[in-house]
């Protein structure tokens, strides 16, 4: 009886020490789940999800149980990837957060621009080049098409231009839904859409 108690206490002490050591030695810095979610988000930093950027939204999904269907720029692909990652059911995009739009880039009408720098301050990825009283211009390759530069512009000289498809960017579309399979959808996105 006494031996058993002693052995068990000794064991628990040893394991306790090992676990305690492991907790210190292999401590994970930051929240890897947030990183993983953040990696799936499109990084437009547009705030359409209701959070002030992609990372805050990722944190909200991980910690506050926010829904995974609030990212219009990411669209269906992001929702499926998040559902897969978090083992949740994929949901259709929440219409309150906006609709899926074709990809765009901002374009500044340089004749109208007064050089107020307000759009530069609004741009989350520093994709606008310019200085006070100088004409501004968009660095097209860096623009994420987030629309955030539109509201602050006092002269409405910024326009979102749809990225034109050419032969190199064109991709085969999703096949038309076969008629006979309408009644038995196995894809939850199609079912609720």
């Amino acid at each position, binding site marked *: 009886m006494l031996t058993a108690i002693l052995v068990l206490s000794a064991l628990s002490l040893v394991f306790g020490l090992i676990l305690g050591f492991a907790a210190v030695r292999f401590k994970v810095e930051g929240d890897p789940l947030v990183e993983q979610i953040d990696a799936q988000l*499109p990084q437009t930093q547009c705030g359409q999800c209701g959070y002030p950027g992609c990372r805050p939204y990722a944190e909200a999904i991980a910690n506050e149980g926010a829904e995974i269907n609030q990212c219009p720029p990411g669209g269906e692909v992001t929702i499926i990837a998040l559902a897969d990652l978090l083992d949740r059911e994929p949901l259709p995009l929440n219409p309150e957060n906006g609709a899926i739009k074709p990809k765009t880039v901002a374009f500044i009408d340089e004749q109208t621009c007064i050089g107020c720098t307000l759009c530069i301050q609004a741009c989350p990825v520093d994709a606008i080049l310019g200085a006070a009283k100088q004409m501004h211009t968009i660095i097209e390759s*860096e623009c994420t098409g987030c629309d955030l530069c539109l509201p602050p512009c006092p002269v409405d000289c910024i326009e979102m231009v749809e990225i034109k498809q050419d032969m190199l960017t*064109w*991709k085969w579309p999703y096949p038309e839904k076969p008629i*006979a*399979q309408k009644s038995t959808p196995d894809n939850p*996105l199609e079912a609720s859409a």
Partner: protein
Amino acid sequence: MSMAPVKLWDFHGGIHPEQNKLQSTTEPSALAQLPKKLVLPLHQHIGEAAEPIVEIGDTVLKGQKIANANGYVSAPVHAPTSGKIIDISEHPIPHPSGLSALAIVIEPDGRDAWVEYTPDQDYSEKNPSHLRNIIREAGIVGLGGAGFPSFIKLNPGSQKKIKTLILNGVECEPYITCDDMLMREDAHSIIEGVHIMRHALQAEECVIAIEDNKPEAYESICKAAAGIAGLRVALVPTRYPQGSEKQLVQVITGKEVPSNGLALHIGVVCHNVATAAAIYRAIHLGQPLISRMVTITGQAVKQPRNLEVLIGTPMDELLQQCGAEFDQIERLVMGGPMMGFALHEINLPVIKTTNCIIAATREELGLDRPAMPCIRCGACADVCPVKLLPQQLYWHARAKELDKVQEYDLFDCIECGCCSYVCPSNIPLVQYYRFAKGAIWTQEQEHKKSDQARERHEFRLMRIEREKREREAKRAKKKAPRPKTDTAKPPPVDGAQMADKMRQEAMAQRDSAEAARKTEIQAALARVQAKKKDAAPKTDAPVAANSPTPAAASTQASTPTSDSDSSADTATHKDHEQSQ
């Protein structure tokens, strides 16, 4: 044939669709009529689009280069006949998307006058790289349908030894007979082209593969190839998709091209027979690729046949020449019924990769059969020449599970369409695979872009934070009393005693002078301070304090690593001072 017959191997799966080849081989090939205008898209090949080197209004001669190759994987474009450039703008092109792309339009003058060119028959003296250059400049791309610039596939690379050159005369897709016709009528050009290719590749042997449904072509090639060392002709049993490069390599050599690999990696290079003929014309005759053999067929065409067509000829003129009933055409297909694609318009130009035009009627297509649910019969897996599991791929592609389709080796799929062909439920399987491939490519690009955006966003946040700290530090500094000039002097940091000594001596000398100067400096300082007090209410910090200074932001935008914030800061200050 004097040589032993080629030992043939097998590949998995495959199908035997209805041939429909006889219709277009009853008549010999003919020249297509010169059209009223020629539309030459700049992107007729795999790789970058060519760059035009002519302007509207220029007159060009037949064979004159009108667009330069742009980059390594690219091909130039030549004028197919003499005439005037009447337009360089976006035109609809034969592409599954139905999009338009930049094209040069030539109005023929009817003279068909050749540009001056230099035939070169002593290719065997020439360096292979010189030959490749001529082939590149002649705008030759793979004429079997893919359109990959041929000179690249004639480069064996630095360390690889090419054992076998396979010349693909298989033409396994139904309806298409342009290679068949070319082999029947112009075996000489093909064999001459083979010699050039072998020289360029330094290949040990060459095998010309022809399916046994083309006995006339086989005979003609055998006759032309008789007695040539290291050149054999293989008659392979007809089966689709034998003409696909990887399957043909397996049939001829018994070796499988590795996944994600090239035939080149196992010492084999595969070219189409028509490419060989085009290479012959480029080297021996000095003529660039300006025309090709095209099969005009389908039930809506009364006299289906092969035509030698100038690149850029509108398809409707070809159809008219073959007596097409336009109102019967339900769908116009470029390429074969298995791997070709439907065209959106009837007057699209023939491009370098147009091997066949099928004007199909409604009953010919069998469009009325709707797709039904998958019953998991497994027929698709039996016929898949790459030994994939098409139904698994289908389920995952349908559910848009892009990582799962890759686990099932989606990218080894050659899109031959065997699975869709045998599917009892008529599911358009290949369309799902094509969609999934495109979606994966898009996703990869977007991931790259979003990583970049994240980096820039994080850098911006860091910069704003740093600017805030710097402003606070500056403000704190302003509030603190000014340190005196004397004490502000740094202590000697230099280790060298000599330097120390010299400095001390210098300082001692200066001390006397300094006392006199000090009074002067103080007076000057007082003057400056008085001036500053006058201007103070205007020029003080509010602009800078506002937040990211515009100049700084822009410097950051272009060079994220630059550290010139403070200098940019002062620059804006000056800006504002000047403007006020």
